[in-house]
């Protein structure tokens, strides 16, 4: 049984299940019917609140990075860690479940990284992050990077308790992604258009993309970025540092216990 939430007790247990039960509409008759109307995502919201409180007290900027597979999350992270590691304490929670590969790439920068085994799950949730924090404590007055599972759809539904949410869209994916997956963009604090070096070779309208993004979140300005050429990196790093300074200001060191 886990100390964080009491989970894990039955996960490995044997049990019968009935995969088609959900199709048996009104399979039982005669009982009293009550409309309960309760939100199940509230459980995630509760973990998210707790994570957020930990980040706040530790003065940590937590950044949740969401994108499709291959949009350049890990590449950008590596560049960013290299640029900031001498000044800012950082750690990385790696949710991309393909392999240990992404975590290895991160660790090569000297920044600690924890790979979460997400298995078949298509997103990280606040509960998984809470457990990750037991193994990899958020770096006090620093930045905790969370690379979400490569998926532009359901990670958007799960608040991790992060301070900032960054959505990355590579220019090779087409500018209509925000239209197709509005939820991810709706909740974003920053939209990065990655692989900007490839713009001359693809049919991608930055203007149209910005237009879609604005309709989903007014004021969401896309930032063109290339981890390859370094274009946009300065502006990106400035945005990160601004958020970091703000988060740092909320640091409340644990009071020593007085007997």
């Amino acid at each position: 049984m886990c100390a964080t939430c009491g989970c894990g007790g039955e996960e490995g247990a044997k049990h019968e299940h009935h995969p088609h039960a959900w199709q048996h509409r009104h399979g039982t008759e005669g009982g009293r019917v009550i409309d309960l109307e309760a939100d199940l995502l509230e459980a995630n919201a509760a973990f998210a609140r707790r994570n957020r409180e930990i980040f706040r007290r530790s003065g940590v900027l937590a950044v949740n990075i969401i994108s499709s597979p291959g949009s350049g999350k890990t590449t950008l992270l590596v560049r960013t860690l290299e640029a900031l590691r001498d000044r800012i304490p950082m750690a990385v929670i790696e949710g991309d479940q393909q392999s240990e590969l992404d975590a290895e790439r991160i660790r090569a920068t000297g920044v600690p990284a924890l790979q979460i085994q997400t298995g078949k799950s298509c997103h990280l949730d606040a509960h998984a992050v809470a457990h990750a924090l037991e193994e990899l404590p958020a770096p006090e007055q620093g930045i905790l990077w969370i690379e979400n599972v490569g998926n532009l759809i359901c990670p958007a539904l799960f608040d991790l308790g992060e301070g900032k949410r960054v959505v990355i869209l590579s220019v090779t994916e087409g500018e209509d992604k925000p239209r197709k997956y509005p939820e991810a963009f709706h909740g974003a604090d920053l939209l990065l258009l990655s692989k900007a070096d490839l713009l001359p070779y693809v049919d991608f309208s930055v203007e149209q993309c910005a237009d879609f993004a604005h309709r989903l979140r007014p004021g969401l300005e896309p930032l063109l970025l290339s981890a390859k050429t370094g274009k946009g990196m300065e502006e990106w790093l400035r945005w990160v540092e601004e958020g970091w300074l703000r988060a740092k200001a909320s640091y409340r060191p644990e009071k020593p216990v007085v007997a």
Partner: protein
Amino acid sequence: MHELSLCRTLVGILETQAGRHHYRRVRRVELRVGPQAMVEPGAMVFSFGVASRGTLAEGAVLEIRPVPARVVCLDCTQEGEAEKLAEACPVCGSYRLLWEEDAGLRLGEIEVD
């Protein structure tokens, strides 16, 4: 598997509400699922079986009901419902829909004794 923790939450709510609504057994549980709440029905039913074992909801039927979201077309202001992501406006064909209300993942009706 996030379905298991969601089902634990679900069973917790069923137990908490038993006193208030005076029931001893749950026969059927309706789960209302909005277009953006990607849950896998098979995993959900399996998890519900695990989470409800030994509780007043053991053996209850989990009914998963998709609920369309309320949307407004940003181009023609047509209001309507969308059953899944990336649907076009039925009036003007635009994909620029503003999602106003999504059920998310909600416990709906239950049938009890």
